[in-house]
């Protein structure tokens, strides 16, 4: 319904759309029938937007590989499918991606991968476009939301015409930029039917060799398609080759520098059109966001270039107008003096992200700290809200999704140290399931703690399968002893975890599942249902300023006052009451109804 009203407006007005919303609407205009994703910033809103369209198959998959496989299968059967993920998700999905290039597709297959230069919300800066070269998959690179919309639609048409998958490479500054976009109503979903083709869809060596030959041959022809998506903005005797979001900075930089340059904007940055060789004139400057993917291809065409390879532009971080203007000036050897940005009169103290007040992870970390006291554990961490356990010194190793149990096993066998692996429920299903089998068959002594908040909280609260397929049931099926605790029940839980610790000490793996839904989801639902949420207060006469609540438990609703006594912000308090449990002198009191509230919360 919401969407209907939306479209009545859309026929006449441009509206402000997030790049990710634009990609979703572009896919709808392109007749997408099957859409899958695993959440990840900055890509999540693509599927969130598509979720509202009930005439399509839209699914949050358990991980990126499964997501791509479902979409790939659908396109092999002739349907149009989109799969969305963040850049590192493409590592997880890389295997089927390569196969998709070999078999090709029947319906259009669009793989959206959103890069995150400068790692606003990621563990690395990898550039998706390398996968295009590596897997022989063309890469379209929109520069803003309006173009993201058009390219999403174009990608389906191209993919179907070429019978080949297409990567749509976004970046944070396209996916999470809002700009005016003109949107057409959705096209009906295009479903399909699987036609058997033994020598095409069975990548056994004899057939795969033929597919390989066909693939390299096809790749040679895609350069012409790439040329169709290239735009030349004629100008003076220097050439700036650019693609994607970098184009915007180029446009502003040439105006700022007041230079007359020919700008070649690539729409498909992998592969680049070979005919570009005849179009460039004068010094060739290359401006791109990410690695030097375009520049590397230009050099393969034996062109001399000035870009990231020789350091005209920084090799890390995000571009902006200033960096691009500086780089172009250096490359063209023209003077350009930038005014220094002003300095803050006093330095602002850092304000790092913290766990939400009342976050169940806060209780779990406190329980784990006390139950493992004296063991000096290695905290093998993972990616999710609980990464913020770093604030209490309880994450020593966070590298990628699934690092907790995977690397944790390695640390345990190599060092014989006591290892606690903390993993969120969504990450548990995404990556840890197979690791659990190794853990069970090899019996590595590891304390695995599933911080089961029933949602993929870090990315905004997508559903997780934890209620349908509880982690403790899985562990039991594998022969790993499992314990369930409630992070709001500190005292009981510490005793339970101590028992688990004893089993690990005897040389066996154990799973502890700490169950309580994400408090953000719970308070949202409680507010809607009109459920009363208690508030807690510190009695200053009783408080001895020990700091257990604000330093060890580290609830972000609790501050130290200048006299070291605790103060609970009444606006931030969500009534979990955990602070009252940990206070050694009983100085924190709530105003009723905790039990009822905790019950409602547990159902959120």
């Amino acid at each position: 319904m919401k969407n209907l009203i939306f479209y009545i407006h859309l026929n006449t007005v441009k509206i402000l759309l997030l790049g990710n919303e634009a990609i979703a609407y572009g896919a709808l205009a392109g007749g997408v029938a099957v859409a899958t994703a695993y959440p990840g910033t900055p890509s999540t809103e693509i599927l969130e937007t598509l979720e509202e369209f009930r005439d399509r198959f839209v699914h949050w998959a358990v991980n990126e590989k499964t997501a791509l496989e479902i979409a790939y299968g659908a396109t092999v059967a002739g349907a149009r499918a989109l799969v969305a993920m963040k850049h590192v998700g493409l590592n997880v999905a890389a295997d089927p991606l390569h196969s998709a290039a070999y078999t090709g597709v029947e319906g259009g297959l669009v793989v959206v991968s959103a890069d995150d230069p400068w790692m606003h919300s990621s563990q690395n800066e990898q550039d998706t476009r390398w996968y295009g070269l590596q897997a022989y998959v063309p890469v379209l690179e929109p520069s803003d939301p309006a173009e993201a919309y058009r390219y999403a639609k174009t990608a389906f048409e191209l993919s179907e015409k070429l019978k080949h998958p297409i990567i749509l490479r976004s970046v944070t500054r396209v996916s999470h930029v809002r700009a005016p976009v003109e949107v057409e109503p959705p096209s009906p979903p295009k479903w399909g039917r699987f036609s058997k083709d033994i020598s095409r869809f069975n990548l056994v060596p004899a057939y795969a060799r033929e597919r390989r030959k066909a693939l390299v041959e096809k790749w040679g022809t895609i350069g012409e398609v790439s040329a169709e998506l290239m735009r030349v903005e004629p100008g003076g005797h220097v050439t700036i080759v650019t693609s994607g979001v970098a184009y915007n900075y180029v446009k502003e930089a040439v105006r700022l520098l007041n230079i007359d340059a020919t700008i070649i904007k690539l729409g498909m940055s992998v592969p680049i059109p070979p005919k570009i060789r005849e179009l460039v004139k004068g010094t060739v400057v290359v401006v791109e966001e990410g690695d030097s993917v375009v520049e590397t291809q230009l050099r393969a065409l034996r062109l001399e270039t000035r870009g990231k390879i020789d350091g005209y532009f920084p090799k890390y971080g995000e571009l902006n107008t200033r960096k691009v203007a500086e780089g172009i000036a250096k490359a063209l050897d023209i003077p350009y003096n930038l005014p220094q940005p002003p300095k803050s009169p006093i330095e602002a103290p850092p304000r790092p992200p913290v766990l939400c007040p009342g976050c169940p992870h806060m209780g779990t970390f406190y329980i784990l700290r006390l139950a493992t006291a004296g063991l000096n554990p290695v905290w093998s961490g993972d990616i999710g809200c609980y990464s913020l356990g770093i604030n209490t010194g309880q994450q020593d190793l966070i590298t990628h999704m699934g690092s907790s149990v995977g690397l944790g096993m390695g640390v345990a066998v190599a060092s014989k140290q006591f290892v606690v692996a903390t993993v969120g429920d969504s990450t548990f299903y995404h990556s840890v399931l197979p690791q659990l089998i190794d853990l069970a068959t090899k019996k590595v002594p590891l304390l695995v703690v599933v911080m089961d908040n029933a949602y993929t909280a870090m990315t905004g609260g997508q559903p997780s399968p934890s209620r349908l397929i509880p982690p403790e049931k899985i562990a039991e099926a594998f022969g790993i002893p499992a314990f369930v605790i409630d992070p709001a029940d500190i005292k009981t839980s510490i005793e339970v975890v101590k028992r688990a610790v004893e089993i690990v000490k005897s040389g066996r793996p154990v799973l502890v599942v700490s169950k309580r839904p994400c408090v953000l989801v719970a308070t949202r639902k409680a507010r809607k249902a009109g459920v009363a949420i208690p508030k807690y207060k510190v009695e200053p006469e009783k408080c001895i300023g020990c700091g257990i609540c604000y330093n060890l438990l580290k609830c972000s609703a609790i501050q130290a006052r200048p006299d070291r006594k605790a103060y609970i912000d009444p606006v931030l308090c969500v009534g979990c009451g955990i602070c009252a449990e940990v206070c050694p002198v009983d100085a924190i009191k709530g105003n009723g109804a905790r039990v009822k509230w905790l019950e409602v919360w547990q159902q959120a």
Partner: protein
Amino acid sequence: MARGMATSLVIVGVGGQGALTLARWIGEAALAAGYDVRIAEIHGMSQRGGSVEVHVRFGKEVYAPVVEEGGADYVVALEAVEALRAYKYLKPSGVLVANKRVIQPPGKWVDPQLVLEAITKSGIKAYVLPCFDMAMELGSPIYENAVMLGAVSKLLNLPMPESLDERNREAFRRGARLVV
């Protein structure tokens, strides 16, 4: 202005203060006024009490979605410590519009008086406005961003966004009066 007359804003605050919404309102108003608009948001940390920073650019023709250091015509801060953090974005001729409120960062206690003095004595043109107090007069801190919107819209000569509800409209009107 050499940059094709685009106006660049950096909007900052603390997670939960509604900096994203404020940016969207400004974008909506600028679009209604006939400008091209870019709003660069950062998602993920906004709900977790960390610093939030959103860039808004509008004008006849806008390309770059982000504002570089030294490139902002306005820094709009819903919180005073964050105003200091965003200083580097200001052009020498830039204007700082800051809420008078200090939200204590975790760890070290900062003296609000010191922060506010630093802002007013920095040599940059600065408005320090009681958005929080005014929001509380309206009954809730959630009106803080709408009060700020009123003030900023007045300075930027932008209309009131249509999507505001009645309470936020009142907050807007009161905010606009703060800068006359």
